[in-house]
């Protein structure tokens, strides 16, 4: 028991880690804001922005966050089967999001709008892929977690890991909302 209590400090550490991550995103947002109009005669965000497409991406991520929250609730209720289903669903939604992002990127690249074209495109690609990379890490993490749960059941340590994963995943959602607003909405509409 004592042991489990002492593990609670992991959350403090994880939150601090999340803040360091947020600061890296802050740098990327700041560079994006500075370079947004440095299109060097190339494509602009207004031409990239495809509202329905981005909206679907957003909905996928929001749903995944919701599903991830449900997984945690089921885990706390010790319902192993449902926990596994919902975690798997979270990961699948993450993969779907990644698929859409890769599609968007390859579309841009195929039309010659590569990240080497202009400072704006460098910043755009970097910010989005940094977020996408986090989603990838999250899905790998979920996969490992599923193995853990399948092997050992809903141990307190596994529930703790689901809680940590939840923090991570919701955080990515929040970052995406910022990307959605700052990159797409403000850039594409204003």
């Amino acid at each position, binding site marked *: 028991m004592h042991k489990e209590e002492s593990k609670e400090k992991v959350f403090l550490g994880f939150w601090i880690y999340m*803040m360091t991550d947020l600061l890296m995103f802050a740098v990327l947002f700041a560079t994006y804001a500075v370079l947004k109009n440095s299109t*060097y005669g190339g494509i602009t965000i207004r031409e990239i922005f495809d509202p329905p497409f981005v909206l679907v991406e957003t909905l996928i991520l929001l749903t995944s966050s919701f599903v991830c929250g449900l997984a945690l609730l089921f885990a706390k209720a010790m319902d192993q089967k449902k926990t596994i289903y919902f975690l798997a669903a979270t990961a699948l939604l993450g993969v779907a999001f990644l698929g859409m992002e890769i599609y968007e990127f390859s579309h841009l690249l195929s039309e010659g709008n590569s990240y080497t074209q202009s400072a704006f495109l460098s910043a755009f690609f970097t910010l989005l892929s940094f977020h996408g990379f986090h989603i990838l890490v999250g899905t790998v993490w979920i996969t490992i977690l599923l193995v853990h749960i399948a092997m050992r059941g809903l141990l307190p340590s596994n529930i703790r890991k689901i809680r940590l994963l939840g923090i991570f995943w919701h955080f990515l959602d929040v970052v995406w909302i910022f990307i959605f607003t700052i990159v797409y909405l403000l850039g594409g509409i204003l």
Partner: protein
Amino acid sequence: MEFLFGRLTLGALPHEWFTIGGTVFMTLAMIGVVAFLTRMKLWKWLWHDWLTSIDPKKIGIMYFIVAALMLVRGGLDAGMIWLQQVMGASSGGYLSAQHFQEIFTAHGVIMVFFVTMGFLFGFMNYIIPLQIGARDLASPFLNTLGFWLYVAGAILINMFFVFGGEFAAAGWLSIAPLSGLEYSPGVGMDYWIWSLQISGIGTTLGGINFIMTILKMRAPGMTLMRMPIFTWASLCSMVMVVIVFPLLTATVALLNLDRLLGMHFFTTTAGGNAMMYTNLIWMWGHPEVYILMIPALGVYSEVVATFSGKRLAGYTSTVIALNAIAIISLFVWLHHFFTMGSGANVNAVFGISTMIIAIPTAVQLFNWVFTMRKGRIRFDTPMLWFLGFVFTFSVGGMTGVLLAVPPADFQLHNSLFLVAHFHTMVIGGALFGIFAGFSYWFPKFTGIKLNERLGKYAFWFWIIGFWVSFGPLYILGLMGAPRRLERYDSVTGWQPLFVVSLIGFGIICIGTAFLVAQIIVSIKNRKKYADLTGDPWDGRTLEWSTSSPPPFYNFAVIPEVKNRDAFWEMKKEGKRIKSKYEDFEMPKGTATGIYIAIFAFFFGFAMIWHIFWLAIACALGIVAFIIFRTFYENTEYEMKAAEVEKVERMR
């Protein structure tokens, strides 16, 4: 071939005198160490007792060793710079411009990242758990991992001797666009990038770990406002680390994207913005100098209180001052480029915010003076380092405030005056703090007191040498000598001052020799210098309540803290810590940190040379190790009360 070896060709192997020299030296040193360990049959001991240990005390000592080695390396660079500047009148000298630039770049990077940071992390590892009455750090694993990433970075930065033969030549911060592909096409820049990335991540992990430790692991009764000042200072410094090191990582990553993938963040073409790099890097860079400074301020506070035999005057205001310094220093970075043209108003705001830092710094100074007032001061070596610091640091602070006046800075920026300013701060502040802490805590590390006489010689040679070598730089700066200059016309009349400066460097070297001699002599005569009490200075904080060196679990019984200066109060009440032992858990040693760091090292190496298959393999290796570790839940073992009793009896 290109697929297998990337950019690495036979031409990259050493063929100049300094790369051959470096390579031969490192190879011989390695052979020597390996032979020694093999002959003495020490491999097992080294691996089990040290390399895979998670004991923060041992990791602390390993930090010291690596940092000391890097100090020698950085010191050699310094000597080469100085010599060239003496010989550089009328285009003389023995170094090419390119080589000179590489040397001062390496010097700065090594001194900041691998020497000062290394020593500070060493102290924090060793001392913080003892000061807060804890048996370990919050996450022993992150701690080894952080340490080994630091080592990986330190080795990587020395690898350019063997592979490539060139280092970055754009200054310790690699300001863009000079650091971009266009002007620095070689691998030297990539060595800079990857050794900072790897060791920087280690530093961030360390920062997270120490914050967790200080906030969550304190002994019962030790409220925040009862913490020793060194712990407070470290907390402030580590909070700054987790705030600004991510900025460094991100910025350097963007620079790397420019170089590796041809992006345009900081280039001069396609809309890139080089000034953004200057801003971003200094947002980290200025706080970084305070990250180095603040723990040293903490060391001084401990030293003054102990050697004045008094409680630190103005504890609360000292804590507030430390926090204020930490916070304000996040908002002053622009003073490093007043000349870049941000406009008069912006310059004024940052000039004033910079000067405000002098206020909390002065608060500390006054508190130290009041602590000494009416105290029974003992002038042992740690106290001497402290007094030397007070003098030197005051001068440095004043020249800093001078530089913070934008119109003055337009004259002094990028001159040797600036170089003199920051060396006054970094040597007179941070390095003297390290020396003070080292002589203060050495008896705790080893159970041996240091020879006082040699320590005093070392101090006097250092401080005199410091002023002889940096005093002239102030004057040279005022005469208009720019920094980073390897050749100049002799009609400038600068050469005599450079000669004086080189003599000062010689005096510093003698001081360093005394430091080394002091350690050797003391260890050789360890019987004579032994300290069996564990409390040679009549200390005030909990680290002195343990034996020297402390047992691996630090405290057999976790102390109850009722007051500030907990140990002092215990001594006054005459209470010995009672010996009713209980079982407790201790972390097991692990080699995972080393393995991950090895992969990180080869990852960095592969990225430098564009050997992408190796990079991918190493990245997968790291992921595999992390996943493996999540399956390995049993990281602790039970320490039985009976066992503790056995160890305690042997003392």
